[in-house]
């Protein structure tokens, strides 16, 4: 794919010019009130072009069946030379081909897909009859190459989220891998492409907004505890900003958020994103607690919502 030179220049200029306010003071984010226009958005999608014919070179490291869930620990090639580590969960005894599935994007914790509270959520969805491909995003979980430092939240922000060029590169890679994960489910595990959805949690929801706008094949997109930026975030690369994407998601969208979220703040990070989303997007407010909290009722609602939209 090629781009008009002027447009590329404009994108780069935007990228470099955007140095928002720092530290605790929230920037008045122009993208929240004035997201990029459609042609710029389309230009952005060029960042996420991936090689769909690349062999997966799938390796299954382990298979375990317990408590109603069969899980495969595996890896497959995402982009040339970079292997994605993942776990594929499905209901014990169920046929993969007959069940819907989701690509699951973890939050910003260094453990990636394997954080205990996320594994519980992934296993729940599998028990509910929705297969789950939980992947480690680049540099997280099993793909931790030391780049993100010792594991503190501030360190990750300094090294990644608030470091615009690095963050953009990371978002690019992550979005490509989401598309590859879609193909993996369809081609390597035989899931009906019309029944593949996306679930993103926290940072995964941020990436999920971008990925599901850039990759329009997802049948349903559930974004849990996400928002425009988190409390420690002060960098801002427009091409990696969910505000410039969320309005372009084409399939059904569910936002699950907490009004008491202490990480993605309600007024500055959550409500503005909801406002930019397509009018058909549904918003569900959890009463379970702050950032990341989900109740039994929330889980039941999420499973029902996904099943209904990925029939």
């Amino acid at each position, binding site marked *: 794919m090629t781009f008009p030179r002027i447009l590329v220049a404009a994108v780069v200029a935007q990228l470099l010019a955007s140095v928002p306010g720092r530290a605790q003071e929230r920037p008045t984010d122009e993208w929240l009130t004035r997201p990029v226009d459609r042609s710029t958005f389309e230009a952005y999608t060029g960042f996420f072009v991936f090689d769909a014919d690349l062999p997966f070179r799938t390796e299954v490291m382990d298979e375990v069946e*317990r408590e109603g869930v069969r899980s495969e620990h595996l890896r497959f090639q995402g982009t040339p030379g970079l292997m994605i580590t993942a776990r594929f969960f499905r209901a014990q*005894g169920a046929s993969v081909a007959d069940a819907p599935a989701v690509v699951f994007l973890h939050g910003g914790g260094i453990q990636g897909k394997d954080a205990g509270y996320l594994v519980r959520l992934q*296993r729940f969805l599998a028990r509910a009859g929705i297969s789950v491909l939980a992947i480690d995003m680049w540099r997280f979980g099993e793909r931790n190459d030391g780049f993100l430092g010792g594991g503190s939240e501030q360190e990750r922000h300094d090294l990644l989220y608030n470091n615009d060029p690095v963050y953009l590169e990371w978002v690019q890679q992550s979005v490509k891998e989401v598309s590859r994960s879609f193909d993996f489910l369809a081609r390597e595990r035989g899931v009906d492409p019309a029944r593949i959805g996306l679930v993103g949690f926290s940072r995964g929801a941020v990436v999920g907004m971008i990925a599901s706008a850039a990759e329009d094949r997802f049948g349903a997109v559930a974004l849990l505890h996400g928002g425009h930026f988190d409390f420690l975030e002060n960098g801002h690369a427009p091409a990696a900003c969910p505000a410039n994407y969320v309005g372009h998601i084409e399939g059904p969208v569910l936002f699950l958020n907490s009004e008491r979220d202490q990480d993605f703040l309600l007024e500055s990070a959550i409500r503005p994103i909801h406002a930019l989303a397509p009018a058909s997007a549904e918003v569900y407010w959890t009463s379970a607690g702050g950032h990341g909290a989900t109740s039994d009722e929330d889980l039941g609602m999420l*499973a029902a919502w996904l099943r209904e939209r990925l029939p």
Partner: protein
Amino acid sequence: MSPDLISRLNEALEGRYRIERELGAGGMATVFLARDLKHDRHVAVKAFRPEVANMLGGERFLREIEIVARIEHPHILTLIDSGDAGGILYFVMPYVSGESLRARLAKEGRLPVADVVRLMRDVADGLAEAHRHGLVHRDIKPDNVMMSGKHAVVMDFGVAKAVSTATGEHHVTTAGMTVGTPTYMSPEQAAAEPDIDHRTDIYALGVLTYELLTGKPPLRGASAAQVLAAHISTTPDPVSRHREETPPALEAVVMRCLEKERENRWQETDELLQQLESIATPSDGVPSTRVPAASKPDKRATAWAKWAGITAVVAAVGGLFIVQQRRAAATADLVAELESALESDDLDGAYSTLVASGRTLGSTALASIAEEVGASLTLTVEPAGAEVQVARVPATLDGPLPSLDLGAAPVQSRTLLSGEYRVTVVAPEHDTASFSLHLHAGETRSVLRTLVPAAWQASEMVYVEGGVVPGPLKAAYQGSAVEPFLMDRFEVTNEQFMRFVSEGGYRDADLWPDSMLMNGAWVGREDALARLVDRTGLPGPRRWSGGTFPDGRGSHPVDGVSWYEAVAFASWSGKDLPTLEQWWRAALGDGDMRFPWGDDLRNIDARSNFTGVGTTPVGRYPFGAGPFGAYDQAGNVKLAICSTHPTSSPSTRRSLARRWDSGS
């Protein structure tokens, strides 16, 4: 260990092991019961406290401990795995469901001599293997020897060495970590000598055996320092001073283990093992006590022998007289002591005194006591020849009192002090039975128990003898009897119910009736199953969430299941729900009592779960077990039963027992 650390451990072990519950905690570490996910089996995970782990230094410690993995032996608990889980050092061992020798000592005070010999031989066998590999345990003690069936296995091999290597200390470190335990330390350990060898283990085995025989270690003191000093300089009493019936050969073996100078102990563990084998097989005799074969006598020697013989006879007669005098005095003392205990209504004290004396109530000298507070027990066991032990349950329920070995069944007219007992019956190729028994003063009691053959693979079930229907139904069922049957020893756990859910129990139409009665209305199967869901709408008990049970509750009874779910589970397991008559029969047997454990109301909270704060793991209340050994029949969760005829109308469905939160 805090829940936070448990969750850290669980996260680090995700995919390999899942922590289920705590088995025990010591100064340095906590041991957890865990599920090995790959091999679907239970294992024990020992996790060191983080501050201990910091001091040990992970890599070096793990390197040391992994040396143990090289040893495989039936009497050594092998190392399965080890690692550093985010700063928590841990290692994984096979799970042994039996108790430690420490627990057995706590229950029984001292062990039957034959058991001691067998256990000591097992431990020596394991040690001999380790010593052949150049490994020294350094911390042999009752806590580190587990019972696996009737056999002993040594655990924590390599831990003490790993700790001492990692810390550079030889006994008590500044952090209070003990490398070796003062009571069981060899003199050279106590003196912090650097060149500890296998003879340290031989000494500790001597201490352990001494304690198993007498109920107390050979050397004691008010402080650790005093104990250490005693190991270096105090000669212990001969074993027989504290347990008369100790065979001389066994005493000689133990006392040689306890020599201060290691050169004077058994030099090789194999040599010690050989001695123990000889004692355990009496027909072989023991070399040190064997009388040499007679050679042809010479006349002079014969003459001397006559004089010597006469002298010996005189000495023997004199000795016998003295022994008899002493015995009569001891009997008088014993009777006085027992009478004093009985006057103060202290039957537990009387029991302990009696057991310690080695005498039985059946002896003529104690007839008056037997008449007052004795009861006669005849216990017939199928199969005959099973070994029977009883241990009195004290009024305070702070652990059973020392046990009495009643020998091989059938036990005929054995006089015991009246009261509550825990009876244990063991036979080869059968599951061990353990049940509650009440004896009332003056009664003559005949009891029949049947052991479940191991081949039936029903180890989690108890055999309930047929007989009358007791309890509230007694009058209504007068004259009719219940046939013998097997019943689960414990309530169905969450983990067991999870298997039913996982394997499609809610999807299998054959397990469910076409219609079910719900809230007073009949509902078709599909609609009914849509209502039998957990808090997140997934099939399962209504107190579950996300299709699974609450974290850490795998061993708790499943709660919040409907009667239909109970029936489906039972059917899936190849069993039936018990009938009302069977349930009462298992709970009360032939006894005329209020609860499975008797009539004790004062300790009801220690015998069953009426805590009001939630379910407790099944089997948590051993003193609440019934006359056939079934647990938790009085309280924890409600238990479903079926009607008298399993095929009759569901309107006869019932549930019994009380929930933990039900009011009085």
